[in-house]
C-alpha cells in the first residue's frame, strides 16, 4: 500500500501542471455567444492537442500519449483542478475513441481517430431513446440494410453536442427476431444529412445542454458499423465503462472545488461556528475524500484485473449523492436568498437533480451493485 506518487508519476504530474499553467486559456469570457463559447472550447482542444495532451490515454500509434492509467488519472485531476474548460470533443476523446481503438477495424481507426484529436470532427452519443432510458436493450431505433447502406429511422434523446457533431455513436436495432440485446448494432452516423434533425432539449435549469435527434431514413454506409453487426450491445457497454471510469477523476475534483467554494460561502455568511453547518461540512468533506480515495482504489483494481469492474457503479452513485447534498446545503446556507438566480449556486442546485439520473440512474446502479458485486438474484 503506497498512496504516494512514484518519482515517475510525480514527474508526469509536474509536467502536466507546468504545461497547464503555461497554457491555461483562462476563464471562459462572460457574455460570449453560444457559437463563440464553442469556438473557445475547440481552440482549447487544439491547444491541448498541440501540446500532446489530447487523447492522453490513447496508444501512441493512434496519436495519443500512451499514458498509463495513473498518468491519465493525474492528467484528468490536474485539468479539472485548474478549472480549465473541457475539450470540445470530450465524448469522442473519452468514449468514442477508446471504443474504436478496442472494436474498430484498422481502416476505421485511420479514418476516424485523427480528426477526433484535432476537434475537426466532433462526436455525439445516440444511445438513449424516450422509451429506453434504463432499459437500454429495448432500443427501438431501426436500421435496415439497403444495398451497401443501412437505413435508420427512430428517435434519440440526451445527445449532448448533437448540433456541433459530425458523427453520432448510434446504437440501433438491426434484428428484431433475436433476444433484445443481441439484435443491436453500433454505427457511426453522419450527422450532416437532412434525415437527421436536431432539436435542443431545454432542462429545468433553463439551459439546453442536451438534444433530441429525429432520424427519418438516414443512411449509414456499411463500413461505419463498429464491432460487427449484432454486437452493438457489447460495444456500447465498452463505451459506458470508459465513461464511468474516465470521468470519475474529474468528478471528484469538481466536487472538491465546489466544496471549497461552499466553505468560502460559510465564512462569508459568518456561519463557521454554527454547529449544524460544521456537521454538514464535516460530513461532506469526509464523503468527498472517500470518493477521491475510492477513485484511486478503483484504479488499483483495474490495474490488477485489467478492466473496470462493477464497483465503478458505486463511485458514480456516491458522487451524485454527495453533489446533491452539497448543492442542497448551499441553499440552506443562503436562507431567504436561496431561490434567487443571481448566484451560480442556485443553478448548480437545480442541475444536480439530474446527477442521479444521467449516465445510469441510481436505481440501476444499485441493481448493478446488488447483482454483479454482491451476487444477489436478478428480479427480471
Amino acid at each position: 500500500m503506497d498512496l504516494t506518487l512514484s518519482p515517475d508519476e510525480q514527474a508526469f504530474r509536474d509536467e502536466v501542471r507546468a504545461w497547464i499553467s503555461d497554457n491555461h486559456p483562462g476563464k471562459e469570457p462572460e457574455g460570449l455567444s453560444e457559437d463563440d463559447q464553442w469556438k473557445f472550447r475547440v481552440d482549447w482542444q487544439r491547444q491541448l492537442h498541440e501540446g500532446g495532451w489530447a487523447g492522453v490515454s490513447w496508444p501512441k500509434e493512434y496519436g495519443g500519449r500512451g499514458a498509463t492509467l495513473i498518468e491519465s488519472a493525474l492528467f484528468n485531476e490536474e485539468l479539472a483542478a485548474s478549472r480549465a474548460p473541457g475539450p470540445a470533443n470530450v465524448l469522442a476523446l473519452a468514449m468514442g475513441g477508446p471504443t474504436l481503438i478496442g472494436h474498430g477495424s484498422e481502416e476505421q481507426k485511420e479514418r476516424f481517430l485523427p480528426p477526433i484529436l484535432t476537434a475537426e470532427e466532433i462526436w455525439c452519443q445516440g444511445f438513449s431513446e424516450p422509451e429506453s432510458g434504463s432499459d437500454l436493450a429495448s432500443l427501438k431505433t431501426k436500421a435496415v440494410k439497403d444495398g451497401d447502406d443501412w437505413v435508420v429511422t427512430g428517435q434519440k434523446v440526451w445527445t449532448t453536442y448533437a448540433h456541433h457533431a459530425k458523427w453520432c455513436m448510434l446504437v440501433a436495432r438491426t434484428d428484431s427476431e433475436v433476444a433484445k440485446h443481441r439484435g443491436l448494432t453500433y454505427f457511426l452516423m453522419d450527422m450532416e444529412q437532412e434525415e437527421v434533425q436536431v432539436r435542443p432539449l431545454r432542462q429545468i435549469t433553463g439551459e439546453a445542454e442536451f438534444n433530441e435527434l429525429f432520424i427519418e431514413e438516414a443512411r449509414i454506409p456499411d463500413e461505419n458499423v463498429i464491432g460487427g453487426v449484432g454486437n452493438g450491445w457489447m460495444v456500447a457497454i465498452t463505451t459506458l465503462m470508459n465513461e464511468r471510469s474516465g470521468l470519475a477523476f474529474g468528478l471528484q475534483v469538481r466536487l472538491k472545488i465546489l466544496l471549497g467554494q461552499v466553505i468560502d460561502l460559510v465564512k462569508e455568511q459568518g456561519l463557521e461556528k454554527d454547529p449544524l453547518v460544521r456537521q454538514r461540512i464535516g460530513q461532506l468533506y469526509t464523503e468527498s475524500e472517500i470518493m477521491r480515495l475510492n477513485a484511486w482504489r478503483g484504479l488499483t483494481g483495474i490495474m490488477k484485473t485489467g478492466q473496470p469492474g462493477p464497483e465503478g457503479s458505486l463511485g458514480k452513485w456516491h458522487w451524485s449523492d454527495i453533489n446533491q447534498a452539497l448543492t442542497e446545503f448551499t441553499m440552506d446556507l443562503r436562507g431567504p436568498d436561496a431561490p434567487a438566480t443571481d448566484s451560480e449556486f442556485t443553478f448548480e442546485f437545480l442541475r444536480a437533480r439530474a446527477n442521479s439520473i444521467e449516465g445510469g440512474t441510481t436505481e440501476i446502479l444499485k441493481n448493478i451493485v446488488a447483482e454483479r458485486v454482491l451476487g444477489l438474484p436478478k428480479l427480471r
Partner: protein
Amino acid sequence: MNFDFDDDQRSIKSTAREFLASRSKFEKVRECSEGGHYDEAIWKEMIDLGWAGIFIPEQYGGQELGVVELVILQEELGYAVTPSPFFSNAAAGLMVLHAGSDEQKERLLPGVASGEATGTVGILHDGSAPLVPDAEAASFIVLAGEGDTTRIVEAGDAKIEHRDTIDGTRSFARVSGEGEEMPGDAGAGLDRACAALAAELTGCSQRAMEMAVEYAKDRKQFERPIGAYQGVSHRCAEMLLETEGARAATYYAGWAADHEPESLPAAASMAKAYASDAGWRVTASSLQVHGGIGFTWEHDLHFLLKRAKTDGHLLGGASWHRDRVAKIAGLGDAVIAQV
C-alpha cells in the same frame, strides 16, 4: 372530534379544484411563468369568487370565514401551482388583521378583500427583506422581522428591486423602506401566513406525488411498469407518508388559528417546518421517478418543484421553525440563529 371538513368547506374545496383545473392548467402556468406575468383574468375570477377576502371580516368586505378555509384554497392553489398574488395578498391581510390598528384595518383590509389594493409581506434581514412576493404590484408591504417593529410601507415609499428566482410562477423583489408601525400581534399574523404557505406546499406535494404515481403505472422498463419495482413503489409510499404528514400538520395549524390560538405558534412552526421539507423531498423524489423527462423544461413537474423549494425558504426555513418548536417543547431560546 372530527378531522373532516364540513359541507361548506368541502364545497369550497371542490369549487377550487374544479375552477383551477379548468382555468389554471399547466399550459397556463407555463405561459405565465415564461412570460413573467400573472394571468389577470384568473386573478379577477378568484376575486369574484370572494377568495381574496375569505378570512376577512364582513365589515371590511370579506367573507369572514377562517384560516381553515384559507388553507383549503391555498392547498388547491399549490396543487395547481397557480400564478397569482393570492398568497402575498392574504398574508398581508392576516398581518393587518392581527397586528394592525383599527384605523389600519379600516384603511387597508377592504382593498385586500376586493383585490383592488393588494398587499404583501416581507421578513427583514439586515435592514431589507430579501425576497418579497408580488411586491412590485402591491399597494403596501408589511415588513416584519425579529427585533424590528413591524411596519406598513406604502408602495411609493418602498425601494423595490425585482429579483428573478427559480420560481417563475411568482414574482419577487428585494424591499426596504420606512413606514408606519403596526401596534398589534405580528406573530399571530405570521403564524397564520405560515399555515397558508404550508398548505401550498402540501398541495404541491400532492400533485407531484400523483404525477409520480401515474407515471410509474404507465412507464415500462424491462417489460414491467416501473411502479412494480420497490425502488419506485416504496419511494411513492414515502411521498404519501410525507404529504399526509404535511397535510395533517397544516390542517391542525389552520384549525388552531381559528379555534385554539394558544396552540398556534407550535402548530404553525410544525406545519411550516415539516411541509417545507416534505415539499422539497416529495417533488425532488417525483423528479427521480420521472427520470430524464422530469428534468426537462417541457415537462410540468419543475413548476411544482421550484415553487415548493421557494416556499420552503419564505417566512423562515425548516431549521428556523424546527428550532422554534424545540423552544416551545421546553428547551428555551436558542443561542445561535439557525440556518
